[in-house]
C-alpha cells in the first residue's frame, strides 16, 4: 500500500497547490475545520484561490486567515456573517462571492464527488439564486438545475484515521467534511488521532479510505468556540 501518512501539513500540501487553484475546506463555522492545513496553505503563499466552504471563518482564524492575506479571490459559501474582513473586501469588490443555499452547496459537493454533473432542486426557485439557471417542471412543480462541484484539493478534518485513510468524525464536527472528501482530485485529511489498522469498526467508518490520498496527524487543536452558551447548575 502506498504510504498516505505525511509528517506534517506543509509536506502534505507540497506539489499539489498552485496559484488559481480551487480548494474545498470542511467545517461549519469554526467546528470541524482543517485548522492545520489552512495554516500551512497560508505559508505556501498560494494566490488567487477559489475557496468552497460553508463559511469564511472569522477574522484571524479558519479561512479568515487566507482572507486576511488576500490569498482567496473567490468564495463559494452559504453564510459569511461572522467575518468582518470578508464583508469589507466584498463590499469593496476586492473579492468575488457566490452564495449558495446551504443544502444546495452540500448537494453540489456530494454530486461532484459522485460524478453527477447536475441535479434539480426546488431550493431557490423565484429568488436571486435561480437567475440564469435552467428551470424544469416535474409533477407540476418548478425546479432549478444546479451543477456538481469538484476541487483541485479538498482539505478535511476528521477525529480518527487509520493508515488506510478510513476516517471517523466526531459529533457536529462532521458537517461538510465527508462530501468534500469525495470531491477533491486530491483529498488531504488532518486528524486528531491515528489508530492502528483494524482498530476502527468497519461498520462505523464515515469516509472510506479510497477518498483520502494524504493524511496528517495534527497536534494541539485550538478548536475555537464561537458562541459559548451554558446553563447554570442549580445547587442541590
Amino acid at each position, binding site marked *: 500500500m502506498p504510504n498516505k501518512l505525511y509528517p506534517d501539513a506543509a509536506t502534505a500540501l507540497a506539489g499539489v497547490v498552485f496559484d488559481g487553484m480551487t480548494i474545498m475546506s470542511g467545517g*461549519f*463555522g*469554526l*467546528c*470541524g475545520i482543517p485548522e492545520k492545513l489552512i495554516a500551512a496553505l497560508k505559508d505556501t503563499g498560494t494566490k488567487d484561490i477559489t475557496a468552497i466552504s*460553508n463559511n469564511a471563518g472569522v477574522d484571524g482564524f479558519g479561512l479568515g486567515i487566507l482572507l486576511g492575506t488576500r490569498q482567496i479571490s473567490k468564495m463559494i*459559501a*452559504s*453564510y*459569511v*456573517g*461572522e467575518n468582518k474582513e470578508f*464583508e469589507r473586501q*466584498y*463590499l469593496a469588490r476586492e473579492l468575488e*462571492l457566490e*452564495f449558495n*443555499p*446551504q*443544502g*444546495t*452547496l*452540500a*448537494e453540489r*459537493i*456530494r454530486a461532484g464527488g459522485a460524478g453527477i454533473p447536475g441535479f434539480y*432542486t*426546488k*431550493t*431557490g*426557485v*423565484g*429568488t*436571486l*439564486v435561480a437567475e440564469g439557471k435552467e428551470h424544469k417542471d416535474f409533477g407540476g412543480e418548478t425546479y432549478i438545475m444546479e451543477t456538481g462541484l469538484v476541487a483541485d484539493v479538498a482539505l478535511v478534518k476528521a*477525529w480518527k484515521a487509520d493508515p488506510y485513510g478510513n476516517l471517523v*468524525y*466526531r*459529533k*457536529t*464536527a*462532521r*458537517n*461538510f*467534511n*465527508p*462530501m468534500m472528501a469525495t470531491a477533491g482530485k486530491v483529498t488531504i485529511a488532518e486528524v486528531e488521532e491515528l489508530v492502528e489498522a483494524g482498530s476502527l469498526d468497519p461498520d462505523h467508518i*464515515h469516509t472510506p479510505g479510497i477518498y483520502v490520498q494524504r493524511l496528517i496527524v495534527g497536534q494541539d487543536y485550538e*478548536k*475555537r*468556540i*464561537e*458562541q*459559548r*452558551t*451554558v*446553563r*447554570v*447548575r442549580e445547587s442541590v
Partner: protein
Amino acid sequence: MAWNRDEQAARAARELQDGFYVNLGIGMPTLVANHIAPGIDITLQSENGMLGMGPFPYEDEIDADLINAGKQTITELRRSSYFNSADSFAMVRGGHIDLSILGAMEVAENGDLANWMIPGKMVKGMGGAMDLVAGVKRIIVLMEHNSKSGEAKFKTECTLPLTGKGVVDMVISDLAVLARPAKGEGFRLVELAPGVTLDELRAKTEGGFAA
C-alpha cells in the same frame, strides 16, 4: 399590550404537535424550545448535522465539536443522531421535517419571505433558510410586526430579495397571528395579542388579510 418575545415564542410553541421533527431558526425562534408543553414530544433538528438537540451544556460539559446552527454550544440527548450536511439537507429538502420556525425581515400577503440580505448593506448569506422554506412541510415566521423605524413587515409585496416564494403558512408577530389554510390562499386573522384591536392591527399592517 402586545406580546413580548417570550410570549410570541410561547404562542408559536402551541403549534407544535406530539412527535414533530422541528427546525428552529436563529434568534427569537430558538426561544420556542423553552415553551414546549408537557406531554408534547418534539425532536429538534439542527441543520449542521444533528437530530435530537439538547439544552445548553453546563460549564464542565462544553464540547467544541458539539454546536448548533447558530454556532452555540449544545448537548446531546439519548435520542440524538449525527449526520453530514448532505444528509441533513436531504431531511430538509425531502420533506421529512414537519415544521420550521424562522425569523423574517419581510413577509408578503402571498406568502413570500425575505430574510437573508439587504442589498449594499448586509451580505451575510442565506445559510439553510432557502432550503428550509422550500422543503419543510409547514413554515411559521416569528417577527416583530413593525421594524424599528415603524414600517410594516407584513407587506403587499416584499421589497428585499426573496428567500422563498409563497412559502409562509403562519406569521406570529407581537400584535397578532395571521395564517392561511393552504399555500396559494390568502392570510386570515387568527388571533390578536391581548389589548390589540383590529383597527390598530390594520393601521400597522400593509399587507392584506381577512379579519
